[in-house]
């Protein structure tokens, strides 16, 4: 069994290269890779979205992402992980987050990627302001059902 490894963690403004993430976690010992990709959707809670501004508390976002990845590598020995989150202004269809997790076997790889995206959504200090077709903007607040309009 290959050693667990957090191979790459980054919060970036440039486009995410999912192929590079897959290559990063590839290994002769890995028989399975699970890649989760989050993309900007054209609608959220019934409102047409044209784009999203992602903002991060950069240093803490990176340290939390690394902590989450390391926790996954601890609970899942042999897991190899690479995660990127993109910030700045993204358009519909742009990739906002990508998580690649590989392992000798499929169940740990699938569990690993899922564990990471769920933790990311809870703990990583990143926020998104949705831009709507009518020109309105609102910070998304998952803790309340309605996005808090700010414009």
């Amino acid at each position, binding site marked *: 069994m290959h050693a667990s490894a957090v191979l790459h963690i980054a919060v970036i403004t440039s486009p995410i290269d999912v192929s590079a993430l897959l290559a990063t976690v590839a290994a002769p010992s890995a028989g399975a890779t699970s890649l989760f990709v989050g993309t900007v959707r054209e609608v959220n809670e019934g409102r047409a979205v044209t784009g999203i501004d*992602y903002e991060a*508390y950069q240093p803490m976002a990176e340290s939390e992402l690394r902590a989450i990845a390391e926790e996954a590598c601890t609970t899942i020995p042999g897991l190899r992980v690479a995660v990127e989150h993109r910030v700045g202004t993204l358009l519909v269809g742009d990739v906002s987050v990508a998580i690649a997790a590989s392992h000798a076997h499929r169940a740990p790889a699938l569990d690993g990627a899922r564990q990471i995206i769920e933790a*990311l*959504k809870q703990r990583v*200090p990143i926020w*998104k302001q949705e831009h709507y077709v009518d020109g309105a903007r609102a910070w998304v607040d*998952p*803790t309340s059902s309605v996005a*808090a309009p*700010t414009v």
Partner: protein
Amino acid sequence: MSIPVLLFASYADAFGARRLDVPVGAPCRVDALVNALRSLPGGTRLPAAPLVAVNRVWAAPDAMIAAGDEVALIPPVAGG
């Protein structure tokens, strides 16, 4: 005699700034700082228990803030 607090996203909008010097002396508890923030313009828009990070680590309401600590008020996260 104030503690600088980093603000992000909806909180930065609420307070009209990305950084605020909160008129309270260090050391002080996290919840004391939050209460001081509530009394500033825009402070009423804070939720009941806003998240706070001290030196980039989540901090409980009873955690202590020392002089020079990096304190950030963290709106409900929405990554991914």
